[in-house]
């Protein structure tokens, strides 16, 4: 069907989905009982300050007109101002989104690095001690509540033996003595760009606990999915043929079986990234990680709709973009899928 047409169709679908989500948020804004004017007028506004705010936000304009303005704002990326903090949302998103994306990426990588090899080895030595232990660990990881795991990790590694920082994204010394100027917003990358290895090490240390907490659930899923996929693959004839040709166990496992498991692993990658994007709310609160999750949960509790709308829009964009990329990678990796 040609790469171009496939891309076009998927893009059209994605736009449709994003529009749907934006509309859903806008509807929620109307349905949920809230008085944006009071929120916008400041912490303890007087009655007339609220009236002034209502006019300023032209809340009394007819619904379709407001949706048009709302959709236009989303499209142009000028998300306007938060009702609560009156700060331009785009500015906050530029600070918070990379933090969440960084955490989501690292935790997803961690989930894959732990889950997939473990699943592969468990499948290779099915019934062996690794398979049973791995099976139990994966179920435990899936069942473990994130907020509880976060507390345990914090108590043990940070407060207990103190080898890892308790919270935050960078140590305060760096922010005080020589702050890192954000280029991409990803501290790991920025520190490398600035060539500051101390900052890189510090950022990495701050990432470990939250990323590990966030990676537990997807790692469990990754392991279970990879294990079942590999078991099926290892039973196939071409694996038997490869063994008959005298190839070594490791070469067969990683060279022949694992490439076939790329498909299921990609779905796991998609799932754990999506989970990290939205599941991070709890982890961000406990580890004081200045990410989108915390920013949005506060906005939801105080019904700060521009922030909710903008963040949801951005998260949905990431989600849809990631799905698109995953499908493309899947097609490229698996030659049988003709685009």
């Amino acid at each position, binding site marked *: 069907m040609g790469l171009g047409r496939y891309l076009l169709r998927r893009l059209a*679908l994605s736009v*449709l*989905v*994003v529009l*749907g*989500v934006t509309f*859903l948020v806008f509807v*929620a804004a109307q*349905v*949920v*009982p809230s008085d944006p004017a009071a929120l916008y007028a400041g912490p303890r506004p007087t009655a007339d300050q609220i009236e002034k705010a209502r006019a300023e936000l032209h809340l009394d304009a007819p619904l379709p007109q407001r949706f048009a303005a709302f959709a236009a704002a989303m499209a142009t990326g000028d998300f306007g101002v938060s009702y609560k903090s009156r700060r331009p949302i785009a500015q906050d998103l530029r600070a918070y989104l990379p933090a969440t994306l960084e955490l989501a990426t690292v935790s997803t990588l961690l989930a894959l690095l732990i889950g997939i090899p473990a699943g592969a080895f468990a499948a290779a030595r099915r019934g062996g001690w690794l398979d049973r232990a791995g099976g139990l660990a994966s*179920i*435990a990881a*899936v*069942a*473990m*509540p*994130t*907020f*509880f795991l976060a*507390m345990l990790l914090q*108590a043990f590694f940070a*407060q207990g033996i103190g080898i890892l920082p308790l919270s935050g994204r960078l140590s305060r010394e760096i922010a005080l003595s020589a702050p890192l100027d954000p280029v991409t917003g990803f501290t790991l990358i920025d520190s490398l760009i600035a060539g500051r290895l101390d900052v890189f090490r510090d950022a990495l240390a701050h990432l470990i606990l939250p990323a590990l907490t966030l990676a537990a659930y997807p790692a469990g899923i990754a392991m*279970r*999915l990879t*294990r*079942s996929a590999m*078991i099926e693959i290892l039973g196939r004839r071409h694996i038997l043929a490869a063994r008959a040709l005298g190839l070594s166990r490791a070469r067969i496992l990683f060279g022949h079986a694992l490439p076939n498991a790329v498909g299921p692993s990609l779905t796991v990658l998609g799932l754990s990234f*999506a989970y990290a*994007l*939205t*599941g991070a*709310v*709890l982890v961000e609160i*406990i580890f004081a990680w200045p990410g989108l999750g915390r920013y*949005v*949960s506060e906005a*939801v*509790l105080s*019904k700060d709709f521009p922030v*909710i709308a903008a*963040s*949801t829009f951005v*998260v*949905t964009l990431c*989600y*849809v973009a990631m799905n698109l990329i995953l499908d493309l990678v899947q097609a490229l990796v698996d030659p049988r899928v003709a685009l």
Partner: protein
Amino acid sequence: MSLTARLGPKGTIALAIVVLAVVLALFAPWISPFPDQGAGAPNIADKFQPPSLTHLFGTDHLGRDMVSRVIYGARVSLTSGLLIVFVALAVGLPVGLIAGYAGGWWDEGLMRMTDVFLAFPALLLAVLMAAALGPGLINAILAVAVTWWPWYARIARAEVLALRGQPYVEAARLMGVSHPRILIRHILPAALRPLSVQAALDVGPALLTASALSFLGLGVLPPTADWGQMVDAGRKFFPERWWYSAAPGLAVFLLALAFSVLGDALRDREGEDA
């Protein structure tokens, strides 16, 4: 073959834990050592008692016995876990069936709608719904179910697509059996099998999401015992008074574990080895 044999050792233990949780939830007033404290009555005199013989898991900031609170908490967590999955199935299944069976515009429309709900960040949608509906158990359950049904719609659709091509379906069609009858009599039972296994596997994560909601203060109203809220309340006193968070946290973990293992055991017995 008896049920326990069918489920294997791990499955039986998991089933035992689930049954125990159900019994605890149903007969909480008679089982818990301090029923009134479990329901919420404060008892300031022995505030923050460490674990002892009378209070196996110590007491909370209002002196209430943690064991009783956890037993009463089972009511909320169990009901929310099961109801979320049930409501999600009740919504997702029909959508998936119709989309898969009808195909064409129906399929495209329903599936795009499902995508919208799937694209919408799950916990955010749940928190938004809970904020909109206000706190309370039923609202929290609806809020989480809203983000959960799309998964079941997808699974149901995949099953229907696979089954629609089956000869016995075409045969029924040839004999003039009406579409709805085919759907309900032939396709639904076959689709239910993998879905029920998935549902059993999902009760654990469902009650975790519900307890995450109450962790954010959007679950049941105090003083009703709720594991998520108890872990949150205990967090401030962690680690000095570790038992305040440990008891409910462990309870959530055990119940979720039990359901997952049970789901797995059911899946294995179904022949698809996951």
